[in-house]
């Protein structure tokens, strides 16, 4: 009896731009998923060899150990300004900024707002895990109300520590922002949607549409005091405060709510 042997084909492999090293991220951390998505998208778009990326301060500074493109380290929060400088002298390069929530939503609010306001042709990947991971789990501007961190030991109280800041909604109303979206790494289906958002945000730059940002809800099992599995499940609660979806895609005719007013 002859058994038909199907020809083997590769259905999953390491993207070329993803460097073959073991990770420094904690077990279960979402940064690794996002690094892979970036490697896939930049590879598929063929922009790896002309990418200049900006690394933030925080856990993700070591992103240059994983993504095989040129990188420069920015001071804490200044990645959008650094990316702006690169963009203005290297119009033929692809410019990527990678930021965490402490970086973008706290210390770097001026830089992100004005880079977006100028409509800089850069793509900003904003990883929101609601905590300062590298320094040991302190409250971030994005930390949920009631969430315990090492600097909100009884839970974040609005009266003491204010409210979570929805940065991407705030940025989406700026005319210079061509594309703003929020995805999640909670499960494979959402990871696929997030990849599509990253791809669209990169295309917005390549087509010269304007500033593009993708906020990605990610987890921090160690900082949250959860197992990796628990932390992934917790992302469902995070989504309630930070709704997923495309906030603005001007070229595709999806304006923000404020765009419609008075028109």
């Amino acid at each position, binding site marked *: 009896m002859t058994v038909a042997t199907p020809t083997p084909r590769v259905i999953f492999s390491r993207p070329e731009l993803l460097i073959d090293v073991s990770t420094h991220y904690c077990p279960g951390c979402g940064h690794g998923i996002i690094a892979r998505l970036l490697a896939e998208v930049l590879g598929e778009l063929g922009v790896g060899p002309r990418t200049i990326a900006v690394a933030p301060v925080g856990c993700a500074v070591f992103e240059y150990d994983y993504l095989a493109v040129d990188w420069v380290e920015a001071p804490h929060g200044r990645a959008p300004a650094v990316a702006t400088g690169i963009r203005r002298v290297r119009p033929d390069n692809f410019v990527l900024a990678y930021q965490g929530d402490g970086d973008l939503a706290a210390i770097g609010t001026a830089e992100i707002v*004005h880079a977006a306001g100028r409509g800089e042709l850069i793509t900003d990947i904003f990883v929101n895990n609601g905590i300062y991971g590298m320094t040991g789990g302190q409250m971030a501007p994005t930390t949920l109300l009631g969430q315990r961190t090492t600097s909100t030991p009884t839970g974040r109280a609005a009266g003491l520590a204010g409210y979570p800041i929805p940065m991407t909604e705030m940025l989406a109303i700026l005319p210079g922002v061509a594309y703003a979206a929020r995805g999640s790494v909670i499960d494979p289906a959402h990871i696929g949607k997030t990849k599509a958002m990253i791809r669209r945000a990169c295309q917005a730059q390549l087509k010269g549409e304007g500033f593009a940002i993708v906020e990605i809800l990610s987890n921090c099992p160690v900082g949250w005091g959860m197992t990796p599995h628990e932390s992934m499940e917790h992302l469902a609660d995070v989504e309630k405060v930070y709704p997923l979806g495309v906030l603005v895609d001007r070229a595709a005719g999806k304006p923000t709510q404020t765009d419609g007013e008075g028109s």
Partner: protein
Amino acid sequence: MTTAMRRQAAANPAPGRRARVLMKGNEAIAEAAIQAGCDAYFGYPITPQAELLEWMARRMPELGRAFIQAESELGAINMGLGAAATGARVLVSTSSPGMSLMAEAMSYMAGSETPLVLVNVMRGGPGLGSIGPSQSDYFQAVKGHGHGDYRVPVLAPASIGEAVELVATSFELAERYRTPVILLADGIMGQAMEPIAPRFRHPSRPKLDWALTGADGRPPRVVRSLFLQPERLEEHNDALQAKYRRIAEREVRWAGEQLDDAELVVVAYGTAARVAHSAVAMARREGMRVGLFRPISLWPFPEPQLRELAARARGILVVELSAGQMVEDVRLAVEGRCPVAFHGRTGGMVPSPDDVLTQLHLLGARVRERGAA
């Protein structure tokens, strides 16, 4: 002469001879950077350097080069960091309070060896201070700004013509040694107008085998200052320190006037040296043997030259538009070989040549007493 006319004159010098043009310091520095091949300028409005930004606002775009009025000095210097990391020739300018904000990125650029030229047109401090001329940021420029073990070359012009020359020199030093360089001017250097025959220079560009251009056909590059392994960071710091020693050996700049027979020496830089120059001439007319020693590189400080001079002189008078900052480096260089007196004004006040002459009389009397004792 309007700004527009000066811009026209500077950009289009008369053919066949070096035209003399009346230029404001800030504008001359800006045009010198343009002629030196500056690819990108980033700034934020602050007095007394605002004309520099305004000059760039018109000239850079018309040449197809990058110009951004940033959201803050933090934004400006970090745009500079990004552009410089790609190997572009970058100028950033500010004045004292803005320099404080730029301190952070200066540390990162020193650590990641990113070349950039930063102009600080100093005003009175501390705090918001005044917009008058001052040299109160000597410590900040020479000893300070950001965190960590690092130094940057600091050049201080004493005339607008010299400022023009030092802009090109600053770009050369920045690229040769992969370091930020500070051009330290005071409010008078920025605001005064002088007729100059500018010697614009366009330094050749060295090969940049570290710049970020995209990893196309070569391994990826990282411009970084983070080295978490202590052994690796110490190695990096040792390499930086070795570079600083090379700079200290090769890049000392200073000027002297009437030093050969000088018994008393005035040490001053920038605008204070202009005042001192007049005072020295007045003292000479009185028969005093007085000379002027003018550091041009504040780091590396002309320490060996000053030490040698101190062995011959009977007294040194340091004049600054500050409460006394460079005088500390003078005393370190002199090592007690002769008395070191100080005269300074602050807050935007400038000593007159008569003031300095009076101080020279006092110093003369002091050293005569010392000699008689």
